[in-house]
């Protein structure tokens, strides 16, 4: 792998930027995601930063079942992210629709709309499990073909280098 790609990968593993998106959840997973930022769990010691915009994010952390209202927006946000990008589905609802499966306004889990790299089940998913998912995802970057299928085909240097 070329030097630039090695640098990009190193900086991505050292300091991934995440965007958090709630697709209609009950908020339990959302507060566990925020709890991951607080001193007890302190996700920031991994260099992880919560960003407000998809364009600067490496990882999309999604909670909630996909409602009809939100599905197109979810796809747009995913499209806005630069390659390589990863998606973590946090919570049982994000994995499969959870208790809301079968409700007329709910389409299903996140993977009914966009590809997902890591599933964190739980209702709500514990902060430790969320951190574990992010850590496993980062470790898997060493094996790009496992992380995101599109990555294996196109080692695109589009992704910004984060210092």
């Amino acid at each position, binding site marked *: 792998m070329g030097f630039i790609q090695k640098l990009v990968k190193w900086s991505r593993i050292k300091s991934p930027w995440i965007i958090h998106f709630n697709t209609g959840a009950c908020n339990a997973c959302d507060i566990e995601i925020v709890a991951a930022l607080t001193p007890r769990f302190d996700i920031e010691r991994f260099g992880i930063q919560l960003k407000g915009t998809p364009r600067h994010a490496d990882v999309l952390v999604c909670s909630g079942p996909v*409602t*009809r*209202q*939100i*599905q*197109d*927006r979810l796809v*747009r946000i995913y499209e806005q992210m630069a390659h390589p990008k990863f998606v973590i589905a946090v919570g049982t609802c994000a994995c499969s629709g959870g208790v809301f499966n079968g409700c*007329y*306004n709910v389409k299903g889990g996140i993977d009914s709309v966009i590809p997902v790299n890591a599933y964190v089940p739980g209702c709500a998913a514990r902060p430790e499990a969320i951190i574990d998912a992010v850590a496993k995802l980062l470790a898997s970057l060493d094996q790009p073909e496992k992380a995101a299928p599109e990555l294996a085909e196109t080692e695109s240097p589009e992704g910004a280098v984060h210092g």
Partner: protein
Amino acid sequence: MANEQQIQTELVQKFPFLAEKFVIKRERRIFCETAYDHFLEVFGHAVEKMDFKIFATVTGLDEGENLSFLYHLSRLDGTLLNIKTSVSKTNPVLKTVTGWFPGSALYERELVDMFGAKVEGLPDGFRYPLPDSFPKDQHPLRKDWKPEMLPEGAGSIMEEK
């Protein structure tokens, strides 16, 4: 249950037609029922003369030929007065109670979206809780509505491109 009985006495005295279906279920839970043409009088009296100054919400019910509406009024002493009224499903017209409670607009809009009620006098505004692209003639809480009736893509809040 002196408090509840007092409420019963006053309401039935003023509106004798309430007597037939007046029920004190337990302390702080009073249920009564009236045809729609008398509903606003009863409601107005409870709010203005009997201190039921808190409007909790209105529950819509699909009862076959009719749509029924249960208005939940509360007082600071904790008593809940529930006034039920019905209109026909083919022409479910109600008048708004926003004159007494501006906060009721959202609850009435829910009746419009979910049951197909027509609420006269409701201030102009968005629909609630369904998104704009949800078909206007489908009302999910009606018993005959099934999710399969929704066209594909309905309900998305993204604008058509």
